[in-house]
């Protein structure tokens, strides 16, 4: 067993490749941040439109659901003849994956804002715009943040698949290790990408707690505002 463990990880290789590990780690983070960032830029307006005009939600959900269903490897490959082995190919695939998650959670969050709260805000003279930015969005924030967390964690996983088109961040180690039967590289890529996903999830959870202090204090008056607070609900 000990001999096997020795073969499994060659620490000398890990220590002599610090530079490469760092640059691929950074590439992984960059690909993820850009994908979720662009995903938010696209999905946020779409979600608000879908929330205001319910009849648009079905086609939007249908189309983004279609994109979500197409396996990432297939999408990367289908894009190859158009955008080649490039960051663009990787990002189009990654962004298209985040849209359904982000739009769905934003719409669920917005439609969960109680009608009487909105009525009260209108009674206080809030315009439609103020209502959105100062009442609906803050109350929908836990659901939106839950969506961002899922999107970030799944994107970090998908980036490893982009190794097949040469833009895989830490996934590059997994692919190289597989091709050269070098366990150290496989484990390094797998462990670091899981660690990155868990760290990002924890960081976002922390950010959510800071951004929505009311969701922690509880109390009978604030609790009904956040119907998804129940832990374990699949959107969280």
């Amino acid at each position, binding site marked *: 067993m000990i001999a096997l463990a020795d073969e499994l990880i060659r620490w000398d290789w890990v220590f002599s490749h610090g530079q490469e590990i760092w640059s691929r780690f950074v590439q992984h983070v960059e690909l993820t941040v850009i994908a979720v960032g662009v995903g938010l830029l696209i999905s946020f307006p779409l979600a608000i439109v879908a929330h205001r005009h319910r009849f648009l939600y079905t086609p939007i959900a249908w189309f983004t659901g279609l994109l979500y269903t197409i396996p990432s490897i297939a999408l990367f490959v289908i894009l190859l003849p158009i955008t080649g082995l490039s960051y663009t190919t990787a990002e189009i695939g990654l962004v298209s994956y985040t849209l359904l998650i982000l739009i769905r959670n934003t719409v669920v969050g917005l439609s969960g804002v109680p009608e009487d709260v909105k009525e009260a805000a209108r009674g206080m003279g809030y315009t439609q715009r103020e209502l959105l930015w100062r009442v609906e969005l803050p109350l929908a924030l836990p659901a939106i943040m839950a969506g961002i967390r899922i999107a970030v964690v799944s994107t970090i996983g998908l980036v490893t698949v982009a190794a097949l088109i040469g833009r895989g961040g830490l996934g590059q180690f997994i692919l190289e290790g597989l091709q050269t039967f070098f366990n150290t590289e496989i484990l390094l890529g797998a462990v670091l990408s899981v660690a990155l996903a868990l760290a990002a999830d924890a960081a976002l959870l922390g950010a959510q707690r800071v951004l929505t202090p009311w969701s922690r204090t509880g109390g009978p008056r604030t609790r009904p505002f956040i119907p998804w607070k129940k832990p*374990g609900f699949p959107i969280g």
Partner: protein
Amino acid sequence: MHTFVDVLHWLTTSSHWSGSGGIPIRVGEHLELSVVSVGLACAVAIPVGLVVGHLRRYEFLAVSFANLGRAVPSFAILVLAYLLFLQLWPSLAFGFGPTVVALFLLSVPPILTNTYVGVQSVDADTVEAARGMGMTERDVLLRLELPLAAPLIMAGVRTGAVTAVATATLAALIGGGGLGRFIIDGFHTNDVAMVVSGAVLVAILSILTEGAFALVERAVRPRTSSRQTGGTLAAGRRSRAVA
């Protein structure tokens, strides 16, 4: 546009639809991998989820497990399963064995979480009423909670199945069959039409899987108009693909 014509040509060439490496055989291999893994995942995850949900405990474990499942990249799981097989049963390491293990591990979390949440979110008063009417715990679980949780459970199976079909593509990387073969072999022989055709077939298969499960999900929806049930169903519909 050149590629588009090439792909159409590749897909309509009759020789690609016959023989041991033909499209029907590859689709069969692809489905075999997915069905075996998701079947095993259901056999494990649904009973565990039902019991844990019925006891309304260990919630933390179920949720952390689901989050961990999401955090581990499918590509990494597959390669790690391959590595494990190479160490333990080298003769079985190519293709089927490690892929089934990987797809199983990937489809357990959504099925387990959804089963658990589905059972747990059945209205507590309804459960209490059933107990009051003299139902045993077993009856409560199988005749009340299971039917009410069915749509959410099916939603979990659907997520697991679509993930499995998508990831079965990667089996070709470790010497397995399935539609991924066209993508990997095409890469090695620089045959763009073959690569893209493989990807198109995978995409179609995934969409068909999703569609088929949407129909099943509709079929298992309890036919009642009570408000509690309505609430559970709304939750099921909302959480579908995100779970």
